[in-house]
């Protein structure tokens, strides 16, 4: 499926941005040769921001058709492939067991949209990853339930597992500043992980994104919130099992929590209608931080660093070699569908 076809599957003709098109600052991903499709530009990590005008139907519910279009457009732009299934195949193999790390802590109103995970699951199935080899997971089964994920597989649906059910490894993963036991879902039940964070302002770390979402892969995130979560977020992401299994980030920024986060309170979220795609978790968080700050500015809220919430962990993560935290060193591709 090409970019043009995606537009029709998304907003339809009533939407002004009904065609996948670049915005003013866009770097267009338009591979013209086979070689270009195989290898995205070397050097700068790419972050794709896909927006639509109709991702949300009412309240927090999302339109699956719109999400499907956004998902496919994002994968195509990120990978340089012409077909969404092949694009996804750049990051996971058909033979693998795939984990989908969601964030359900704040429950339905501020959790990764189940509709997004459903659509990703369907695409994985088309790739050949049967639903029984797909696992959506997070810290507690109660959070999965509260976020409307079904714990028991629905027919041919993917599995949803809380780390409290699956348990954690007895052996410790050692870090310079702490030590953690890893989720057995991560270590034993999946070969690769697609990280599906939700974008939120966070009163301690500054923001919740791809890097912080991996706190849900360890048994003791409660020990990691001192000092703006720095260096803990970075060190957790440098644990080999977490770093090496993460293949792709699809960030849910449809309705980010922009103030009083990370828990949801009425009025704390703002509609942004965006999904972000990247393989570099530091780069995607850096771009997401810009989106968060813009949304806060619209509400006349101060920048995070003025309220002692600067996400300093981004530069720490960059120093650990986990990705790029310099905005000028990131290729941002913006699309509307």
């Amino acid at each position, binding site marked *: 499926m090409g970019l043009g076809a995606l537009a029709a599957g998304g907003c339809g003709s009533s939407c002004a941005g009904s065609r996948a098109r670049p915005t003013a600052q866009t770097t267009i991903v338009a591979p013209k040769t086979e070689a270009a499709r195989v290898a995205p530009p070397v050097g700068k990590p790419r972050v794709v921001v896909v927006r639509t005008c109709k991702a949300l139907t009412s309240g927090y519910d999302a339109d699956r058709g719109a999400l499907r279009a956004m998902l496919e457009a994002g994968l195509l732009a990120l990978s340089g492939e012409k077909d969404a299934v092949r694009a996804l195949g750049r990051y996971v193999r058909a033979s693998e067991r795939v984990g989908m790390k969601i964030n359900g*802590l*704040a*429950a339905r109103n501020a959790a990764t949209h189940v509709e997004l995970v459903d659509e990703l699951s369907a695409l994985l199935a088309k790739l050949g990853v049967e639903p029984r080899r797909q696992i959506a997971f997070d810290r*507690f089964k*109660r*959070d999965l339930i509260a976020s409307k994920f079904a714990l028991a597989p629905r027919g041919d649906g993917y599995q949803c597992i809380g780390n*409290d*059910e699956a*348990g*954690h490894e*007895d052996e*410790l993963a*050692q870090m310079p500043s*702490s*030590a953690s*036991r890893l989720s057995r879902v991560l270590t034993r039940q999946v070969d690769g992980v697609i990280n599906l964070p939700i974008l939120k302002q966070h*009163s301690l770390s500054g923001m919740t994104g791809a890097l912080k979402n991996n706190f849900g892969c360890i*048994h*003791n995130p*409660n*020990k990691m*919130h*001192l000092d703006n979560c720095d260096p803990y977020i970075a060190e957790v992401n440098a644990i080999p099992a977490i770093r090496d299994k993460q293949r792709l980030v699809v960030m849910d920024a449809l309705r980010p929590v922009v103030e*009083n*986060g*990370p*828990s949801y*309170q009425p009025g704390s979220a703002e509609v942004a209608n965006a999904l972000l795609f990247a393989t570099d978790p530091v780069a995607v968080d850096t771009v997401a931080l810009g989106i968060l700050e813009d949304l806060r500015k619209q509400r006349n809220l101060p920048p995070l660093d003025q309220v002692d919430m600067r996400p300093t962990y981004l530069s720490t993560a960059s120093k650990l070699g986990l990705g790029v935290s310099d905005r000028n060193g990131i290729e941002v591709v913006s699309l509307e569908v």
Partner: protein
Amino acid sequence: MTVLSRRGFFLTCGGCALAASAGPLLPRRALAGATPRAFPARFWKKLEGKRIECGLCPKRCKVEDRERGFCGVRENRDGEYLTLVWGQPCAVHVDPIEKKPFFHFRPGSQAFSIATAGCNLECKCCQNWDISQAKPEDVDFSYMPPDEVVRGAKQYDACVTFTYSEPIVFLEYCIDTAKAARKAGVRSTMVTGGSGEAEPMKEALKYLDGIKVDLKGFTEDYYQRMCKGKLEPVKKTLEVIAKSGVWLELVHLCVPGQNDGEPEIRSMCRWVKEHLGRDVPLHFTRFHPEYQMKNVPPTPNATLIRCREIGHAEGLRFVYTGNVPGLAGEDTSCPSCGKVVVARRGFELEGMHVKNGRCEYCGYTMPGVWS
């Protein structure tokens, strides 16, 4: 069968005896992964929205709805703060009181020892990290309300001891159990890192008979770097305890190259003498490689001996070495006549010459709780 942490069963020799003979005590057991019961927590206040601030320890965690504090065992649910460990110990053992170590608190007696998951520190050298650094769901636990704990202690003619992890994080359970114990004529003791706020500590002290505090280091740098905590609040807690009249003993785990420098030890001993008194026993114990410090060798005996010498030189009257059975420094000598009044080897008593709280040789009143 009592419920023990996976590794915890081997923490004590007493555990086997209890497991074999504690039929009537059998608590209901839940395996790791089970959902713990939630009970209203005390010592917290509401903030804006559904946020709350915990007042149990100096971290004063500001906890979001559906989140937990640093300790991992207290949770905000819809603006109400709950404890997930009240009455739900993950370790239950009968230990010699010397293991705590208490050397001046009913020597030779037993301690009915309980712990829940959780801690408000994270010491890199923690010996019990598998329960202290765990959430309630991570470990097996049982339902054991206060009266059942007291019944168990009476069965062994033991005091109740809150220990192994950090009792401050299960303080409501400690207070309720110690209250019930006092009513039943059973004594209660606590083994703690001492990192608590004054108000809850004072409430607990009303019902406790003895406290052993781990004074883990004597610099802010050590507490921050090695324990994710602070020294100053511990010093304040120690002063609160000293004023309360509850029997107090101190332990300093000597971690090679980290907190065993002579200036630090000397300064600590001086402070103890000046602020807590010369009769507070101070135990210098051997570090064993654990948790995040498996690459550090055990404390050399010479270090422990030197620390003990410093303690004596600074005017402390009861300074001990520990975790090295047979090393000089385990016996208690009478400060008046100099004779050994309590002879020990490891956790075993080899001689007891304190009668009715007095030295059998010269009649000197020995500081401590002896009967």
